[in-house]
């Protein structure tokens, strides 16, 4: 193990090298590009003996991975924003063909208007495609999640694709110290993918095919059952991860100071770090507040969310995206999970950090103030006003 100073994007690239990925395919998009630039360099320098397929679109990038995975190769792609939206059709194909692809997603706002800022709309729009979704808070988590994602995706009980999401710029282009494990330790945790080709040369068989309703529903049910097995499998994978690397990944949700909390905030990704600092500050002032970070959004960890928030009175969910005509996407998930709780907390949907607006400690303090003042039915847009001290043009 060595400690390196890595951006979130280069943490993805390092993990891909360590995972001995065999086929990589990608198309450039900001702020993803530095991931695959680094991988291309690994291949060029002979540090990763992989086929790098340079394609003419993200749609083709994912098709390359789907087809390569069918023959049994370990595959990787990475994208962001518009690129992920263009992949949408192939997202279903990847999951339906049970292709254990791992994809790095740098969460970026969707146009129009153009914005390169952090925003979760791109990956949340893929919730129903059959992919496992991880959201990282730190660059260390990015590297660890990619290795974990391959183990999980290739597990015989699962065999589903997985995406590892990181916030644009806050992680993708920000460097942090990252423990990079040695190749032999990674090899022991993540052996080469073998024996799971779904398309075998010389064998008459059809992958994809055409079905009547009776068979179609069986395929969908098998895929759903595979998704059901993700969280139990995650438990054993994370136990092994701890043994191999001496670090705990923390499960699908990570509670922070929820003991005795009456108000709790639910976050994804980098907002969690800021929120944790504010929780400490407010706790020191006597406020009974806590935090729940969601690491795995698909499958949604209903039982874990319910258990973590069982004794909280008021829950606020911070969504860094907006779902038109509904409420915050994560807020909707949390509400659904809590419906069967014996004592249902109120749930307030907060929208903030959209399109790359900074989620500051001051903003998180306002969320908790609002929460402690009582629940609101309607979603609250928390940062519509210009930033203090910011420049107003025009």
């Amino acid at each position, binding site marked *: 193990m060595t400690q390196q100073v890595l951006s979130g994007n280069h943490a993805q690239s390092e993990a891909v090298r360590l995972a001995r990925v*065999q*086929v990589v*395919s990608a198309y450039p998009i900001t702020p993803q590009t530095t991931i695959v630039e680094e991988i291309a360099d690994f291949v060029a320098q002979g540090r990763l003996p*992989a*086929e790098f*397929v*340079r*394609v*003419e*679109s993200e*749609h*083709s*990038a994912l*098709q*390359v*991975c*789907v*087809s*390569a*995975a*069918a*023959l*049994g*190769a370990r*595959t990787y792609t990475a994208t962001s924003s518009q690129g992920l939206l263009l992949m949408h*059709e*192939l997202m279903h*194909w990847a999951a339906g063909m049970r292709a254990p692809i791992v994809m790095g997603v740098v969460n970026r706002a969707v146009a129009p208007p153009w914005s390169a800022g952090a925003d979760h709309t791109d990956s949340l729009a893929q919730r129903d495609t059959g992919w496992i979704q991880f959201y990282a808070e730190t660059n260390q988590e990015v590297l660890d999640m990619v290795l974990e994602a391959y183990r999980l995706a290739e597990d015989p009980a699962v065999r589903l694709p997985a995406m590892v999401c990181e916030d644009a710029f806050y992680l993708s282009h920000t460097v942090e110290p990252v423990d990079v494990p040695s190749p032999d330790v990674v090899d022991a945790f993540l052996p080469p993918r073998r024996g799971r080709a779904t*398309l*075998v*040369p*010389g*064998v*008459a*068989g*059809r*992958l*994809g*095919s*055409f*079905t*009547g309703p009776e*068979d179609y529903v069986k395929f969908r049910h098998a895929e759903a059952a595979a998704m059901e097995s993700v969280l139990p499998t995650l438990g054993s994978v994370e136990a092994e991860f701890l043994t191999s690397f001496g670090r705990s990944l923390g499960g699908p949700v990570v509670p922070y100071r929820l003991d005795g909390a009456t108000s709790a905030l639910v976050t994804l990704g980098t907002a969690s770090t800021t929120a944790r600092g504010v929780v400490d500050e407010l706790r020191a002032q006597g406020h009974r507040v806590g935090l729940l970070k969601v690491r795995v959004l698909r499958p949604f960890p209903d039982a874990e969310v319910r258990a973590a928030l069982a004794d909280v009175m008021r829950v606020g969910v911070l969504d860094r995206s907006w779902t038109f005509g509904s409420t915050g996407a994560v807020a909707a998930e949390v509400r659904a999970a809590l419906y069967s709780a014996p004592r249902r907390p109120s749930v307030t949907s907060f929208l903030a950090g959209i399109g790359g607006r900074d989620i500051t400690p001051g903003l998180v303090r306002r969320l908790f103030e609002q929460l402690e003042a009582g629940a609101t039915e309607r979603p609250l847009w928390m940062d519509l006003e210009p930033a203090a001290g910011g420049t107003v043009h025009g």
Partner: protein
Amino acid sequence: MAKLTLPPEEWVRSGHSACPGCAPALALRFLLKGLGPRTVVSVPACCWTVIATPYPTTALGVAMLDSPIESTGASISGLRAAADALGLDDVTVVGVAGDGGTSDIGLQSLSGMLERRTNAIYLMYDNEAYMNTGIQRSGATPWRAWTTTTPVGPTARGKMEPKKDIMGIVRAHRPVYAATVNPSFPEDFLAKVVKARGLAGPRFLHAFTPCPPGWRYDSARTIEIGSLATETGLFPLYEVEAGRVRLTRRYGRLKPVREYLERQGRFAHLTDEEVDVIQTQVTAGWEELLRAEAAGTAPTAVAPVLAP
């Protein structure tokens, strides 16, 4: 009469669900006779999605991968990359797609595959419309042909635009090998498949595949109509290697294109003037091929003759 020298092995099984007289079924039959059992076939949404028969059966004796309609070029790039990464050196990767899936919605991934020099074969079977969805016009539908989306009426006379020149588009990418094939000429078809198989790099086959329900003719006449397409010069058989074209069927005198057109209901509305336009176009295309062959170059696109 040449001796029939087709390999006896069949990789398209009886029991497939093609329509009677389906030339795309013959195209895959001849293709696989030339490529053999260590072939992986990538098929997007097209007639062959259905012809290959539904789960849990398959009409092919080789491995087949389904993909969405626009993905064939990318899919065969992925299969090749995986075969190379996994050391499956004896595997032949082939994409088989329709004219819409190739020259319309799949043009981008075809271009990508050719440009990145994927070591694979791409066969486009051209039945000149979206036949699997019910005879809708594609970019490959010929001028004045009736389809369900280019009807004939007081303000329209079938497809108003000329057929897209897919071979010209492919040639501009300088593939290792590009050839036209026609199931009415099985030995020529096989010879080109075998030649393509022996080469490395991107290879493209344009197969002319008549469709009885779409072209409105009796299913017993598929071979006859396919033969006429080549004998009239409308679909010449040739191959292009290293920028040089070589005709593989040559005729001292071409049959009139009218003989081809009048056998199909999709052209039943054509006037004599329209037939003359098509004849002028076909003759110009044939002469350009002869000129290019003699000059040792590839043919250049012949400008479409506009309607009278």
